[in-house]
């Protein structure tokens, strides 16, 4: 592992990426394309966090839509009911979501095996049921409307292009954070842990603690993305925060490549655009209706069989973490 040899790649890549983002934001005027781009960005925020968990801690969460929903509902309720500043609501939502992740992750990550997957599955389902049922707070299935816009330097982020320039810089920040994390002490601990848990523990890595840290971080990313979603649409209802979306997030990470920082971003872009394309196609040709879901399943299985490392194979990831084991 020689980080210094590839260290220049990331700043160069990130600069090119930032330039690309700015170009798209300035040149694209079609509101539909901007809308899709904003959703790619929001999904990418969740996927980058989840990618850290899958790729580096070797754990999976089947309830990330729940964390995303917690952020969205925290923002919605705190701003419409209590008139809180949206930015403060976003932070409070992220803190609360982190706390929930801590409470669930602390006991389950001590255990070997895939207990976190099971626990997050249950948690995600409970969260959605609460959104539907606690109608004193959440307005039930009809959802919360009239969520205020975010303001940045006195400017309301009420147009697609303004919101675009909030979301994508945040994606950039998330990518930098994720990249730095993998280069940090914690990242090295996680990498060691992925190769051999026993050896890592013997070398002084607190395995459970490292995994818990990544899990909480990924939940916080999801929560922030959820808050952005709420302020972008100014409306939330329970249906987008269910098991299906949790699965879609996992598909984004795996199809994109969990072992690479860029992978989840690629996955989020591909899946979000594919979703739009398939929905449009199904709109035009009725016989395609329903096949969209089949396509998700088939894409996931084909990727796992033929390209388990995803679209962007991580250069720096140990083999064991590419979701496959050496033969």
């Amino acid at each position, binding site marked *: 592992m020689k980080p210094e040899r590839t260290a220049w790649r990331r700043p160069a890549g990130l600069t090119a990426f930032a330039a690309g983002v700015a170009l798209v934001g300035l040149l694209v005027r079609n509101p539909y394309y901007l809308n899709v781009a904003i959703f790619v960005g929001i999904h990418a925020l969740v996927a980058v966090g989840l990618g850290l968990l899958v790729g580096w801690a070797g754990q*999976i969460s089947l309830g990330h839509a729940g964390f995303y929903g917690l952020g969205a509902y925290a923002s919605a309720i705190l701003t419409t009911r209590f008139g809180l500043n949206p930015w403060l609501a976003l932070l409070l939502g992220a803190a609360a979501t982190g706390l929930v992740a801590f409470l669930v992750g602390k006991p389950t990550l001590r*255990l070997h095996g895939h207990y976190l997957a099971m626990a997050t599955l249950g948690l995600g389902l409970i969260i959605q*049921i*609460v959104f539907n049922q606690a109608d004193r707070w959440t307005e039930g299935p009809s959802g919360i409307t009239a969520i205020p816009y975010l303001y940045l330097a006195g400017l309301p982020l009420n147009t697609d292009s303004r919101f675009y320039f909030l979301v994508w810089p945040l994606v950039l920040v998330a990518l930098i954070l994720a990249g730095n994390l993998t280069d940090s002490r914690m990242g090295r601990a996680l990498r060691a842990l992925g190769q051999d848990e026993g050896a890592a523990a013997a070398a002084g890595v607190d395995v459970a603690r490292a995994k818990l840290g990544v899990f909480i971080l990924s939940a916080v990313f999801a929560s922030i993305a959820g808050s952005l979603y709420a302020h972008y649409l100014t409306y939330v209802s329970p249906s987008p925060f269910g098991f299906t979306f949790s699965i879609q997030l*996992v598909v984004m990470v795996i199809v994109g490549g969990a072992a690479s920082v860029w992978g989840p971003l690629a996955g989020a872009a591909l899946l979000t655009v594919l979703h739009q394309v398939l929905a449009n196609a199904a709109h035009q040709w009725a016989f395609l209706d*329903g096949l969209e879901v*089949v396509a998700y399943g088939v894409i996931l299985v084909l990727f796992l069989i033929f390209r388990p490392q995803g679209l962007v194979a991580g250069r720096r990831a140990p083999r064991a973490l590419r979701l496959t084991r050496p033969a």
Partner: protein
Amino acid sequence: MDGSGLPQFIATGITQGAIYALVAVGFNLVYSATGIINFAQGEFVMLGGMFAVTCYSMLHLPLALAVVLPIAAVMLVGAGVHYFTIRPLRRAHLLTLIMVTVGVSVALRGLAKVVWGADAYPLPPFSAGESLSLAGANINPQSLWVMACAAATGAALTLFLRCTLQGRAMVACALNRRAAQLVGIRVERMHMWAFALAGGVGAIAGSVLAPIALPSYDVGLALALKGFCAAVLGGIGSNAGALLGGVLVGLLESLGAGYVSSGYKDAFAFFVLLLVLLLRPSGLLNVPTRREER
């Protein structure tokens, strides 16, 4: 005529619980042979129900045949799932395999929607007759069928695993894959059988449930999740645990819906799942957690 109160809640809970137990038994079969949590188990149940109603109302087969044929059909589906998606990945990480079953389940659900549409289809009860009145609860004959099938399937599988060469070979694969291979057991073939049997058990659950709750393409997910709760509650890998866990989850749901809140009915099972994972991950019957060997 409609019973209410505690006895009725208990009767409803046990009936529903028997279905969850059957789903949990299916999870156990695959889990104990391969270590995989098969997310497609609920889809096996859905396919069983859909095949049964198709055989009965579209192909006009006699009811008995319409119930038995799907079992063979879904066993084939199970074996196919293993052959085409699990077997090519036999060297892959467990997490990959679990994700594959998630993909298979999504694809099967989507296909079912394309083939059968979004409607629910009826199937007549297996035997006609009045509902039985027992201590103030009305139990319809189909409920008895459900309970009998769950008990019989659990018992038959336990016998199969303990007393037949095939069954013991399957247990051997679960205990130590390499040692099993060394004594000449074809591990891959055993895994295929585990998937096929899980399909068969799923189909039994699906067709016996069909007269009570009409099957539609999307019933699988909820059943899989509840059955999964049941399996974890009882101790994943143990069939006695599956029956116990299933009935407990069913009772909890029915009593919770009756006395606490019907809106949160579905949350109870998942809440118990969380509690079990946090407090006693080996389940009520204290099944040792499986050693990860791959």
